[in-house]
């Protein structure tokens, strides 16, 4: 038996293999207000939550094979809160019976020295972006509506340029592996956002080129 994969290695003593179920879509800037209005009605009654995050994507390249990717994220609006380190596995989109994209997911809170630590480990930053937007929740479902901006001068998050005239809309749930029923809940929720937004199971590998 080889060493267990990173994704199932103990994190804080537990070995829960969490999967992220994901549906994605986008909404044009001019329809944003309508979408937010609808989400406020559909989601749990809570204070509107907004965020401005800076995400840095790190690669660790070996001699051969594929690089290993980690995502480091930190809030620009709340600089004191911990950084967030995330590993995402290969997305699985082939299963037709499943209504959402599924991928391994590992979330860890980290200290502010995370970028230095990753650099020391041999990781190198591949790209970075700034995401700002709104978070909604309904039970376990999470809806993130965010505007993506590219960072024009590396490391300077004040100088950004928006990527497109649309907001990215992501509907996600974290669940232990095998709980495919959550994807049914996601689909029924996504139905309620039509025709404003079409949340779909999008195979990201098709977007590579």
């Amino acid at each position: 038996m080889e060493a267990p994969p990173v994704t199932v290695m103990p994190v804080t003593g537990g070995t829960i293999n969490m999967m992220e179920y994901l549906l994605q879509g986008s909404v044009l800037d001019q329809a944003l207000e309508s979408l937010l209005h609808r989400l406020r009605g559909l989601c749990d009654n809570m204070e509107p939550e907004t965020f401005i995050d800076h995400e840095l994507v790190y690669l660790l390249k070996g001699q051969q094979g594929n690089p290993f990717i980690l995502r480091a994220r930190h809030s620009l609006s709340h600089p004191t809160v911990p950084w967030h380190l995330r590993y995402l596995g290969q997305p699985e989109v082939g299963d037709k019976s499943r209504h959402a994209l599924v991928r391994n997911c590992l979330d860890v809170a980290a200290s502010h020295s995370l970028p230095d630590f990753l650099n020391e480990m041999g990781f190198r930053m591949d790209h970075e972006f700034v995401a700002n937007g709104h978070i909604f929740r309904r039970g376990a479902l999470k809806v993130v509506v965010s505007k993506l901006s590219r960072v024009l001068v590396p490391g300077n998050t004040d100088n950004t340029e928006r990527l497109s005239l649309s907001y990215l809309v992501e509907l996600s749930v974290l669940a232990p592996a095998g709980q495919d029923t959550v994807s049914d809940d996601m689909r029924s929720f996504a139905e309620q956002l039509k025709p404003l937004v079409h949340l779909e199971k999008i195979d990201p590998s098709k977007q590579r080129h």
Partner: protein
Amino acid sequence: MSKCRLKCRSKQQREEKQLEASVDSLISRVAHLKSALHSFIYKLENEFERLEWPSVLDNFALVSGQLNTINKLLRNEKTPSFRNQVIIPLELSPDRDDELAKLTEQRVPVFSHEIVPDHLRTKPDPEVEEQEKQLSAEAARIGPEVAQKQIQTLNKLCSNLLEKLNNPRDDRDPETAAMRQNKPSFNPADTMALVGAVAFGKGLSKCRPPGPVAPGHPGQGPMMSGGPTLQQVTIGGASGQPGGKMPSSIKTNIKSASGHPYNR
């Protein structure tokens, strides 16, 4: 000639009989209505504390049903037109008439010149008559052209209002109105661009110099088209080397998991 007179008389008799019968049936219907109203008013005045709303509605339904039957009776072809019958007061007297009082349940004790115009009235009330007179005077004052114009304006207003009521979702709700114009609220190309950006940094400026990895494959390996799926990466040596800038050995295993649902 005499035959004709006989015929006329028999016709007259028949008509009289018919009139009498219809008046009788009308009286009985009105009596029913009166008793229903009476019991309803009694209930409202004395039993209002335990009167249920459904029973109030029942009473209303009863009254309205009886009014309907009376209307039906009046409209019936066999009922002679009461409008053609003339009632003439033969005698007026300021004295009390007990017989009359009994007939009218003490409502009309005397048949005097004071009350007869009210009870035998066939025209509207004086106030209503006054109003009607004013209206017709006004109508006469307006010329036919002006009247035509006003009719047209009113018709226009009515049709506009009807149109609005028939299409209640237009205008009122700007959101749905926008939707009706089929204004798209999303752009599939934008979706793809954004998904590519979060997944691989597509369209985002690259910070690193081109490395050993081919630029065509900056992120994860091409997994979707081929058979192998779960990518397993183990980092060896890095944890055991304090201060080592680069991990000495990185083992990358791509395992072809045959039992994976993707291969099914």
